[in-house]
């Protein structure tokens, strides 16, 4: 099965190309995906698929099989196996970049092949599901690229100097980075619903505050590179505390609540993680409220997709109560679409087949009894 997706990102082609090849940055864009290891052009990971009652986890590896810098074309080959033995999934993803003025058009062609029971399930919906997934992936990737490298670089800048001054700084940077990202996704998801503009404003405010906090943290950390972590953390708090006041002009309620929450939490890793999660929830709630019936487009925020190197990176599911789940929309539900012409499994037929199996044993018993009876009758006749 072939799936085609295209999107445009507002960055020059060379920047877009650089991000596209950074697997650690693009992997979190795939709904339900997690990276296990990266080794040059090869990487391993898992993709969790959830569709109603169906739960599959594909585990496997992927690699860049082509990186054509001149043509700006990258090909990724991925294959995985369901953990419970429900078949395999394989995909060849070809991404081609084309310059369009100061922005870049990305064409993603996915050749997907699913074997085993999932391919048969569900009367052709797997195509829909596959397209939806890729759509989400493209949206998130577009968001990543569009945010520009500015944010990625800021994250990296924050993470790099923070290294020597202890985990607290890194964590703080990670968290604010994550908050920023969440805010961005909320901003993008806000759409054009009735309250969309308001939410956009709030999200933008939160993002600004978070970015400011990230910057402050890295700024504070740099000069203190060799002082103990504690001192750095303390300074950071001060810096972070002032950040929102300056960065956030009077904004609607939610921002005022959420932005300081993030920055105040900066020194204590766990607290920060939680407040980040809270903000994620708040942002998504605001977003949902605005979006009304329209499901949030960008899917649940992945709070912890901050920069690499965070020694105390927030847990995949923040402790505050599963904000990831709290979005009724496009969760990391499904990942894997199907084969060309799947033979649909009719669940009713399956149930019927089971009934036949149930009667097979008694039927065989009756047949045996009849046979023996016949033999006895024949014998009694011959005698």
């Amino acid at each position, binding site marked *: 099965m072939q799936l085609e997706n295209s999107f445009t990102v507002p960055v020059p082609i060379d920047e877009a190309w650089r991000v596209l090849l950074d697997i650690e940055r693009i992997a979190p864009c795939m709904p339900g995906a997690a990276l296990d290891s990266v080794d040059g052009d090869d990487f391993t990971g898992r993709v969790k698929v959830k*569709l*109603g*009652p*169906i*739960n*599959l986890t594909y585990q496997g590896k992927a690699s860049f099989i082509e990186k054509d810098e001149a043509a700006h074309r990258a090909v990724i080959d991925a294959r995985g196996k369901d953990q*419970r*033995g*429900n078949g395999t999934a394989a995909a060849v993803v070809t991404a081609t970049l084309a310059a369009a003025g100061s922005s870049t058009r990305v064409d993603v062609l996915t050749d997907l092949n699913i074997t085993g*029971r*999932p391919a048969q*399930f569900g*009367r*052709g*919906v797997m*195509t*829909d*599901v596959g397209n*939806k997934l890729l759509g989400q992936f493209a949206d998130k990737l577009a968001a990543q690229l569009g945010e520009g490298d500015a944010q990625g670089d800021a994250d990296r800048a924050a993470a790099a100097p923070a290294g020597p001054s202890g985990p607290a700084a890194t964590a703080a940077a990670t968290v604010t980075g994550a908050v920023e990202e969440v805010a961005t996704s909320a901003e993008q998801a806000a759409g054009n619903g009735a309250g969309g503009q308001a939410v956009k404003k709030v999200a933008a405010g939160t993002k600004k505050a978070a970015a400011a906090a990230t910057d402050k943290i890295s700024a504070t950390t740099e000069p203190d590179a060799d002082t103990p972590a504690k001192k750095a953390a303390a300074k950071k708090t001060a810096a972070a505390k002032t950040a929102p006041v300056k960065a956030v002009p009077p904004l609607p309620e939610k921002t005022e609540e959420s932005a300081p929450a993030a920055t105040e939490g900066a020194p204590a890793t766990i607290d920060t993680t939680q407040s980040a999660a809270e903000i994620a929830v708040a942002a998504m709630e605001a977003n949902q409220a605005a979006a009304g*019936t329209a*499901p949030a487009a960008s899917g649940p925020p992945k709070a912890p997709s901050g920069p690499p190197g965070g020694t105390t990176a927030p847990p995949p599911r923040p402790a505050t109560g*599963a904000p990831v*789940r*709290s979005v*009724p*929309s*496009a*969760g990391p*539900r499904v990942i894997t679409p199907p084969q060309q*012409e799947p*033979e*649909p*499994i*009719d*669940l*009713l037929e*399956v*149930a019927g087949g*089971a009934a036949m*199996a149930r009667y097979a044993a008694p039927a065989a018993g009756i047949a045996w009894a009849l046979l023996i009876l016949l033999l006895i009758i024949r014998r009694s006749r011959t005698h």
Partner: protein
Amino acid sequence: MIPAPFAYARPSTVDEALQAVASGGEDVKVLAGGQSLIPVMRLRLAAPETVVDLTRVAELRGVREEGDAIVIGAMTTHSDVLSDPLIARYAPLLAQATETVADRQVRHRGTFGGALAHADPAADVPGVALALDAEMVIAGLSGRRTVPAAEFFVDYLTTALEEGELLVEIRLPKREGWGTHYEKFNRVAQAWSIVAVAAAVRLEGGRIAEARVGLTNMGPTPLRATGVEAALTGADATAEAIAAAAEHAAEGTSPSSDLNAQADYRQHLATVLTRRALTAAAGL
């Protein structure tokens, strides 16, 4: 064909059920009638850690009157829906659609709430719930909330039910004097709808005062044919007016293509079935 091992809880009240779901671990599944969950478990496409069986929760069964609505317990079986006098009087469309659900055995086990919570786009009752403006009462550990049908169905097999929540009741506004019909198209008697249309019209002196049309299996969720409804409001109750309005049935739909039907065929079916359903509902 044998499901993976799982823990089993059989609570007898909603509160116990919520507790059981909350303490069941990572992957908890709620068992209502089991007509979809059990086959999926037997195929090992689902291997929940805990199954919480609601069959003994008596408060979730039955239909009652409450003001200008009827309240249907989520665990009311399809066959109970079929024989209920309140539904026959105030929401006959639901009974007409339920009659087409699978076969007698499935209707005896399968439940109204289970079918809604499973949210299969090819299932018959979600489209009716949408057309009739049903409200879903959802219970969680922190209390109850009500979600209108239009917001309940989120995506393919996905509803507004959050982790740890249960669908407990469905409220349907009382509607008397409406003409209703459920027109289903499938090839095997007990199969899912390839496309189906739920229609309800209120006539006033030879004119259609109000019309409601729900579409089954025309997208990842059940849909309202709003174009048809708008075209019918105030129109004469004639075959021509209905045929003209039914042409709008496929507007804005994106049905899937599969072995049963291609998307364009489904869209064609939607217009034809809408015309038939409305004609029957208007008594022409």
